[in-house]
């Protein structure tokens, strides 16, 4: 059964003014429990608006959002409880840190959930460990951390709520390759351990290709494609026509194919390419990979 479902959701900003802007037009999407979905689209395509629908930060002007079969706006007073289930990490989440210590900041979410002090403590320590924040940093003020550490502290603040659905809006923006790797690993670990449903918004095709099971492509507020990762990146032309690229490795393989080397058209990670090329060099059968 679909775990997350949007039915014909339309979102308009500043309705009734000259600035009216339809950010999403009748978007219908279903996501299964435990799936890892990548959300891509060029800037302004409505990615952030879409994910904000799912935890009730935006209310659809038309259409309904169902989580676990329940309309989240059925009882607007209970929207907070939806947010406990659907955790959201915003773009540049380090800008939301505010407490005196990192520990207290991570504890903000779980405390709001009304958990007991021991439970909060347990969750904070667990989340800090998950994102790889050393214990001694927890008593520092968040403003003394480095950029990457701040980012991890902010993500820990959401993970500590242990949401069943984790949404991340460009969590790796502005980080170096190592920092990106680290964040992606944290997300992957949470996904596997908690069997959580994850939606990852990203501009980086490489990131999405590596971690997502399915990819949702948005274009001008509409769903352009929503398919398994290996299918999406074989549609190079379609992606490029809406202003997106494919991972660099996919392009290289395409170039090689055009030069007459028999490679499959659904390679999108370096590991895959590595395996395929190796077996090709050893004279094996490429299509078996």
């Amino acid at each position, binding site marked *: 059964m679909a775990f997350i479902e949007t039915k014909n959701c339309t979102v308009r900003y*500043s309705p009734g003014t000259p600035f009216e802007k339809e950010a999403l037009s009748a978007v219908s999407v279903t996501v299964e429990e435990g799936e890892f979905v990548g959300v891509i689209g060029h800037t302004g395509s409505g990615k952030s608006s879409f994910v904000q629908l799912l935890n009730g930060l935006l209310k659809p002007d038309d259409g309904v959002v169902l989580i676990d079969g329940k309309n989240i706006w059925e009882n607007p007073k209970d929207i907070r409880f939806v947010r406990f289930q659907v955790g959201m990490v915003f773009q540049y989440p380090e800008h939301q840190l505010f407490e005196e210590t990192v520990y207290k900041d991570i504890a*903000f979410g779980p405390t709001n959930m009304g958990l007991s002090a021991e439970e909060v403590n347990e969750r904070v320590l667990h989340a800090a460990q998950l994102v790889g924040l050393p214990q001694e940093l927890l008593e520092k003020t968040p403003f003394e951390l480095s950029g990457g550490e701040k980012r991890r502290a902010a993500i820990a*603040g959401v993970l500590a709520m242990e949401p069943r659905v984790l949404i991340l809006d460009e969590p790796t923006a502005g980080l170096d390759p190592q920092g990106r790797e680290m964040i992606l690993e944290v997300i992957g670990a949470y996904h596997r351990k908690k069997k959580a449903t994850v939606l990852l918004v990203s501009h980086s095709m490489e990131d999405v290709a590596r971690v997502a099971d399915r990819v949702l492509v948005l274009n001008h507020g509409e769903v352009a494609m929503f398919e398994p990762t290996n299918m999406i990146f074989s549609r190079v032309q379609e992606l490029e026509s809406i202003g997106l690229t494919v991972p660099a490795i996919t392009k290289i393989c395409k170039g090689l194919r055009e030069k007459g080397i028999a490679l499959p058209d659904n390679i999108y990670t370096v590991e895959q390419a590595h395996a395929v090329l190796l077996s090709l060099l050893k004279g094996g059968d490429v299509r078996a990979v």
Partner: protein
Amino acid sequence: MLSDITIGQFFPGNSVLHRLDPRVKLILVFTYIVAVFIPDNWLGLALSVALLLVLIGLSRIPPKVMIKGLKPVLPLLAFTSLINIFYVKGTILAEFWIFKISLEGIYTALFIAVRILCLIAAGSLLTYTTSPTALTDALERIMSPLKVLHVPVHEIAMMMTIALRFIPTLIEETDKIMSAQKARGADMESGNLLHRVKALIPVLVPLFVSSFRRAYDLATAMECRCYHGGEGRTRLKQFHMVLADYIAVAVMLLLVVLMIMTNLFSSAVL
């Protein structure tokens, strides 16, 4: 949502009012605001309302937007009107306990209400049809004679420009931080006053931090581009008065003269 606040907002457009020289607009709006207080009779008051309606029509600003912009002053309006109804002495119409309502009181209340509405509407019409940069630019030009008295006119104008420029950014930022904290279960919509004030901390702290960061960045960026105050700066856009501007001035002068005439020849009600 916070971004629905419209007071002081600019609505881009290409109406006659949008194209008027901002210096002229600024001075005429001030003239109008003073002029609204001239008439002491119905005819004069009707004149000022009529001019305003014509201007709103010319500006192509949707009446809905105008009305929405006036809503926040309604409580103030109701309060002043009520005070006037009970305080002004004259022919008593009704009386109960210590309250006396006089005909003059009702008239005064009406006059004041209409005047305040006209004043606010004229002010919003100015900001609706003039971009903030044009407005501060105009202000700088109008105030430039004060330089002789060592008033830092350029710096004041620059501060206003920057402040105005960052209002939308701040609103956007506030919206974003509020969303982020709500996503962590912050409850900002319920509870008593103390609870609500406390709920603001998670929003205000990050907002201050980012404002300071932005201020430093802006200062650095301005310095990198060799900004050194108003001395010897030239402008990209020069203001030129055209026929429409002269007509606007003439119309306003005519209105003021007409208002004074109504005071002389029409029977006063105040």
